[in-house]
């Protein structure tokens, strides 16, 4: 795996669209469950609890 991956704008747009359609696919009842599952998978892929912590802090800002 690329040790220093970089998500460019095209990649970010792709993620944006896929996430939006996946939330719709999960439906209003289950989208929260889906997002938590996804966050856990992402944390596992990232492999660093400390980075996950800073991302949680970043996401909690300006809600």
């Amino acid at each position: 795996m690329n040790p220093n991956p970089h998500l460019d704008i095209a990649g970010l747009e792709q993620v944006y669209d896929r996430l939006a359609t996946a939330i719709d696919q999960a439906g209003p009842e289950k989208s929260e469950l889906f997002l938590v599952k996804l966050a856990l998978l992402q944390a596992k892929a990232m492999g660093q609890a400390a980075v996950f912590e800073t991302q949680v802090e970043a996401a909690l800002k300006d809600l």
Partner: protein
Amino acid sequence: MTNHSEERVGAAREIITEAGKSTRFMAPPSRGFRLLRDAVLSLSLTEEFVRPLYHWRTSRPHEYKHSLLNSTSDDNTQFTGGPALGAPPQNVQLQHDDFLLDHLGGSFDLVYVCQSQSIPNELLHAVLAAKNDGLPLKLLAISDRDVKVQGADKTLFDPQQRFQLRYAVLAGGAYLFRPDQHVCARWLEVDATRLLSSLQLAVMQ
């Protein structure tokens, strides 16, 4: 003129697609897209990386991917990175206060990555021949050594080899930029014949 029109029709199509994207941002078509929009807006206050998501039109210059000026005798498809045919250039900081884009534009620019202090004779002759035909062409040699490359109009000193990294090219490779700085040919290993036919194609349109 034919080519100008083709390039701008492509640009217009892209603007329409981009407008669709901004509509999706202004008026999200579903719950999923609304959640994403809200998440991006919330994140954008502190996280710079999401900001281009709602500046589609201003964040990227149009790529003339299908321009008639694009070479048909280069190695474009074999590249693993760097700006492709028709794309605008990416800037590279060569040294403190010295950037690639300071040196491009106003003529065709052949940026050649040098291994030694000289440029292959055959290539030099091709560049001279094109210039003698009245073609506005500059030969810029990129070198990771602080030397004056013989035969080049200008030598760019790039001690960290940042050009090679950003443009995914090694010594012997080259990029040809149009006078408006868009890429019109690129080679992993440039040669005189393919350079001349690419220049010819670009000026015939």
